[in-house]
């Protein structure tokens, strides 16, 4: 009985800490503006939508990885999957969660777009270095 209570509390706390941790990662990128090139490529001008996430991630995987953001991108991809699960499984039962999940999914897409922007900049720098070498 005690173990069941501990397990339930720990799982709930784990989810809550995970959501807050992911939001703290996303919060930093929310203040960053996208470069015009990336806006043109992915078609996101100001606000992203959750539907953009998969497409942006495909672009992201085409670019050389930056070691600094690899784990963050993985964490946010996991968060996005969790939100998508919530949207398909819980939102039909609790409709009031719809707006929250959509907002969070769009934030994830914007985070991925900012990561893509940084990876493109890195690729450009690497190319420039090779040209000058």
């Amino acid at each position, binding site marked *: 009985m005690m*173990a069941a209570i501990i397990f339930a509390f*720990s799982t709930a706390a784990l989810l809550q800490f995970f959501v807050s941790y992911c939001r703290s990662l996303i919060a930093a990128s929310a203040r960053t503006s996208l470069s015009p090139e990336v806006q043109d490529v992915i078609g996101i001008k100001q606000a992203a939508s959750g539907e953009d996430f998969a497409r942006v991630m495909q672009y992201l995987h085409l670019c050389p990885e930056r070691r600094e953001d690899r784990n963050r991108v993985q964490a946010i991809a996991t968060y996005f999957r969790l939100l998508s699960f919530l949207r398909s499984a819980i939102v039909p039962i609790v409709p009031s969660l719809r707006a929250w999940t959509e907002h969070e999914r769009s934030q994830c897409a914007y985070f991925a777009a900012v990561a893509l922007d940084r990876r493109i900049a890195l690729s450009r720098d690497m190319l420039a270095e090779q040209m000058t070498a």
Partner: protein
Amino acid sequence: MDQGAEEKNVLGPFEYVVWFLGIILEAAVVVCAIIKGSFRRYLALNLYMLASVLVSLGRFKTLTDYGFTSSEYVYFYYYSDLLLTIGLYFALMSLYAHVFKEMGEGRYVRFGSLLLLLGTAVFSFGIVQQSSDRILSRFVVEVSQNLYFVGLVLTYVLWGAMLKLRETRTMLIQLVLSLGLYFSVFAASYALRNLFPSLHGIWPFLTPISGCLLPLTWAYAFIRLHENARLAPGRLAVVPR
């Protein structure tokens, strides 16, 4: 110790890779903190990571000398785990001190944490005394499990206080959230072990991977975040404020 792992006397390549990855990450936390000038500011956290590296090396020595299923290794593992958990508990208290520093409540926090630590030990001792004849070894396991849960509750309370006090320091926020993730994973996995003892096959994989979580996120916080970086705490609450 995991029942599945007890059947063999040596570790496989996966266990070794994750183990050494964990040691490297723990050392990386201290190196990153020194490079960024945060070593003294977060002294308890860094001392805990240093102790973790030393304990890991000690465990490796015991493993190579006596074998994985030896009582020497099992005793060393659980006693060092208990000491590390207490160390992490003090690291958590230092985070409390950071949050409540400006309110001048550090003395009460220290007193309260010591009281809770003693209470957990007495509670665990009481449980073990009723249920086991191998009292000392079971006591060590029991108190470790309870400390993980108490640690989780305390981190949860700290996180609630940070949201209430509108704490904005990004590094402090990420250090606390990482600790919360770590405590919840371990508390949940210990509880799951008690609920489903037959699931012993997954612990040799799950436990070491979970152990890498804390050094990975702390190293990231130290190396990537500036001490003066700020963010709006209202953005982080699961229920928007």
